Every structure is written in structure tokens, then in C-alpha cells.
């Protein structure tokens, strides 16, 4: 990643963090609110591959860890694994496929929340698996599908100029949607 991309990604992480903690956190349905954090590594991985996905996931998770009451480093770990997994699993998929972003956002966000809860419980935070998972999966999953396009657009702006072919192809596909 270039210095310009690093700065832009940091800005995107900050914007998403602020939107999450001021607006999104209030959109609570049956005790659960959408989680934009996971969309950062998912979109980065779709645009620029697993390595960028893992790096963005780590730093995004670490930023959120600073303001969340959950164990410090847990979001960074899950974000990193999520970015790597999404990048690796979609490597062979045509990036122009219109279903790719919504499906990756839905499956990735739900899987990340499950992993986050299970790892938290393993680390002694038993209450993290004592929540209403039905509403969590529904709210996080549906919201991720809705918000993946604006977050993807921000991430594409941040990663513009990166050498990976996927970002260029995806940018054209996105511009048709917007």
C-alpha cells in the first residue's frame, strides 16, 4: 500500500467509526444494531485481495477496540481473519459479479460476529454468547447488505492507485451501480 492509500484508509476507518458510534449505534432493533466495522475488511479484501483485507481488518478492528468495552485486540483479530478469509475465498470469483458484494457482506458480517462471540466466550467473556443471536444475525446481516455499497465506494476511493487488478475492475462495476 502506498502512503497516500494508508492515509486515506485511516480516514475511511475514522469516518466509519464515527458514523457507527453516533448514528448506527442508535438504530437498535430488538437489542441489536448494525455493525459497519466488518464491512471495512470485507470491501478491502474484495477490492485488493486478502493481504490488504487482513491489514485493513486489523487496523479497523484495533480502532474500534479502543472505544468498545470488549477485550482489547479481539476486534483486530477477527477483522484480520475476516479480511484474509474473504480475500482468499473470493479470489477465483469474477469481481464484476453483481451478487459478490451483498453476499460477501452478509456472510462475512454474520460469520465475523459469530467468531467474535465465540472467541470472547473462550477468553472468559461468557456473556458474549448469551445474547439473542437471531436478532443479531438478522439486523447485522441485512444492514451489511444495505451499507456495503457506500462503504465499498469509500474503500475504493482509499485504495485507488493500488496495483491489484481487482480494484480497477470493481471500480467500473461499481460506477454502473452508482
Amino acid at each position, binding site marked *: 500500500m502506498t502512503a497516500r492509500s494508508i492515509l486515506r484508509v485511516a480516514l475511511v476507518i475514522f469516518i466509519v467509526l464515527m458514523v457507527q458510534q453516533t448514528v448506527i*449505534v442508535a438504530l437498535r432493533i430488538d437489542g441489536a*444494531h448494525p455493525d459497519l466495522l466488518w464491512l471495512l475488511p470485507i470491501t478491502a479484501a474484495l477490492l485488493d485481495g486478502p*493481504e490488504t483485507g487482513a491489514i485493513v481488518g486489523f487496523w479497523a478492528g484495533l480502532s474500534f477496540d*479502543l472505544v468498545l*468495552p470488549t477485550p*482489547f485486540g479481539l476486534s483486530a483479530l477477527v477483522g484480520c481473519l475476516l479480511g484474509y478469509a474473504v480475500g482468499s475465498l473470493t479470489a477465483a470469483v469474477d469481481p464484476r459479479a453483481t451478487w459478490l458484494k451483498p453476499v460477501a457482506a452478509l456472510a462475512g458480517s454474520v460469520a465475523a460476529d459469530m467468531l467474535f462471540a465465540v472467541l470472547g466466550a473462550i477468553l472468559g467473556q*461468557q456473556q458474549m454468547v*448469551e445474547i439473542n443471536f437471531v436478532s*443479531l444475525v438478522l439486523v447485522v446481516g441485512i444492514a451489511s447488505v444495505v451499507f456495503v455499497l457506500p462503504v465499498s465506494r469509500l474503500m475504493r476511493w482509499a485504495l485507488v492507485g493500488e496495483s491489484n487488478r481487482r480494484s480497477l475492475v470493481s471500480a467500473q462495476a461499481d460506477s454502473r451501480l452508482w
Partner: protein
Amino acid sequence: MPRSRRSRRTLTVVILVVVSLSLISLDLNGRTHSLTSGIKSVANDVYAPLRQGVLDIISPIGNFFAGAFDYGSVQSQNEQLEKTLGQLRASQAEQGFEENQLRELTKLQNLPFLNSLPTVTAQTVDENSSNFTATITLDKGRADGVDVGYPVVGAGGLVGQVIQSFHHTCVVQLVTDGQSKVGVTFGATNQYTGIVDGQGPGNSMTADLVLPHTPLHKGEVMYTSGLQAASYPAGIPVATVQSFHTASGASQETIKVDAAANLSQLAYVDVVQWAPSTT
């Protein structure tokens, strides 16, 4: 894909995973927790004003739409609040005498009475920032005399306990959080004891370690016990009994309870400057 690139990619991910695991270990280890807590504290000092600034900008817009679409219910809620306030003023005047008596009695028993303890009034600036914990963030921190372990009361009872304290903000674990356990007493002369267990956000709490066939009634109030080494001072309403039964052969009564405090109305709360005894 070139082999060297794949190796570099794997190495990057392995390093990030190891760093993440190291940070988690530092945070969960009692001796090094202060390091991660310090980092979080500095970050919160920077983040809290920025977040408040954003809220100051967007809140009037949100309030405008909320007011326009919800004017009727706001008006009826206001009338209801005025009515409740009047009732509370009347009952406060009546309770003065009983409070004095109770203060004298608890003093004799060497138990701290809530009204005799100093409090810091704080505003809730954030609720349930994570989907996995029941917490609120207050606008008071160490600089205002708020420390980890202090009980938080408001809206009719015990709200929770401070679990993280930063310079100007703190995080409170609500009584409904799955990690919350509060020692309680109940009964006509507070002769029965138990533990109120949080079951996670949105779930009913339970009262555990209550002997089978203990006399109970729906709506009975359970208070903090204040027994030796308790995490809370005595006499704070914690929960009201919602339902109870004794299963055959069970070693304890199955009791579901609701929080005594109205946890949906936590705009302002009081932090009680009372630290649990360490002896």
C-alpha cells in the same frame, strides 16, 4: 500467483494474528491490564470530544424529525413525567422521617446507607456500543472522582457498576450484562439472601442461590445485601420478582426478576463514590 508473494501474504497475516493475540493477552492479564487500559484512556480522551462534536451537529437534525413525527407521544410522555414528578415530591416529603430512622439503624449496624454517601451525577453519552455487552458510557471519569468499582444508581434502583474509568468518561456494566452478579437480600426483615444474575441484554435476570420454597411474591423487591466484601453498599433496590417456582428435586428456587431501575431511561444517573472493601 508467485510463491514469494503468497509467502509474504501468509507472513503478514501470521504477524497480525500474533500481534492481536498478544494485545488480548496483555488486556486480560491483571498485571499488564493497566497498559492497555492506559492506551484506551488516551484514545478515549481524544475520541470523546470528537464524538460529542459530531453528535452536537447531527442531534438537532434528528430531534427535528423525531419531534415532527412523534409530537403526540412526546406531549403525553411530558404529561406523564409531570404527574410522576408530583407524586415523587409528595412521597419524598413523607419518607423523610423513615429515612432518618433507617439511617440511624444502618449506622448502628455499620452498613453504609446510600443517602449518606457522596455521589457524582453523570449524563449517559452512549448506550450499548457493542452488540455483545450491556454497558453505558458516562460523561464523568477519574478527573471527576469516578473510579472503577463504583456503583451507579438511577431511574429507581441499581443501574450497574463502573468497569472502566478514563480521564473524562467511564464505562458502566449494567446489571443485565451477563457478567453482572449482585448479592441481594429480601423478605419482611431482609432475612433471605441470593444473587441476582444478569443474562445479557434484552433477557430477564435470574435470582440464584435462593433455597427452595422460600416465601416470595410477585413484585417483591430485592436490595443489595451490603454483606462483608460486597461489591455494593446495602439497601439499593436491584430487582423485582417477575415469576418463581420450585422444580421437584431442585436445590434452589427458579426465580426470574426484572431490574428495579428503568434501564430504558438512563439519560442521567448517579455514580456512588463507594469502593468495595478489599479486606
